[in-house]
């Protein structure tokens, strides 16, 4: 029983010591750089498909009319 008690108390002391040693170095996470705001993926995808289709549609018609005027 005494050995078990000793084992537990020593374990607690070791954890406490490790926590104290790591505590000042954990402050590295306190500094951060401001990141750009993220846009939801669905919005980005829908916008990108719309814009691509609208851009592609007109030049294709234009080139078709210009070089193959049938």
């Amino acid at each position, binding site marked *: 029983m005494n050995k078990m*008690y*000793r084992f537990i*108390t*020593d374990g607690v*002391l*070791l954890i*406490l*010591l490790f926590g*104290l*040693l*790591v*505590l*000042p*170095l954990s*402050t*590295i*996470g*306190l*500094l*951060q*750089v*401001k990141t750009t705001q993220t846009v939801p993926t669905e919005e980005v995808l829908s916008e990108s498909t719309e814009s691509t289709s609208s851009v592609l549609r007109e030049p294709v018609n234009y080139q078709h009319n210009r070089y193959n005027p049938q």
Partner: protein
Amino acid sequence: MFSRILIKLVDQAVVPAMLLLVVRILSVIFVSRHFGIEFTVGQSGFVFKMPGDYVLVNSYSTLAMICVLSVGLLYILMKSMYLHETHITPSFTAKLFSMRLSFFIQSSFDLYSQGVVWMSYLYLLVFVGALMVMFGLIYLWVLLSAVVLAIISTYFFVVDIENEMFLEKSKKNNDVNKEYVLTFGGSNE
């Protein structure tokens, strides 16, 4: 009941932990003000706008931590070299007692537990500093200064432990408690 060494180490680790924590936070504020870097304090901590500002402030605040560690280690090494109860000269002991500064004289147990704690902080800082250099979060010269300090302080610490060990050996060889039997009243033949 409790491990005496572990209790001593925990006891000795509290002051440097708090000191380094305070130095880290104060140095971030001071360096930002000194270089005119803007930051906001949010829930997650200090937030900087530019990555370059972040690296600058992080490097100088880490350097401040290294400076505090070097002062602490220098104090412990000076005590272990000149005020160690096993090395101290009798005349210096008498001087300290006359000036009522006898509490400066410390035992090996006190000195080595302090040394182990402060050296652990320094080694951990070198390890974390190496990781930060790898990810480009601090300048390389900050890590190099920490490594140089670690090498020098380790060398002097080892020299002091060696002195202590040789003193122990010589004490064993010149054992004053050895019994000698003197016979008086012998004939002068």
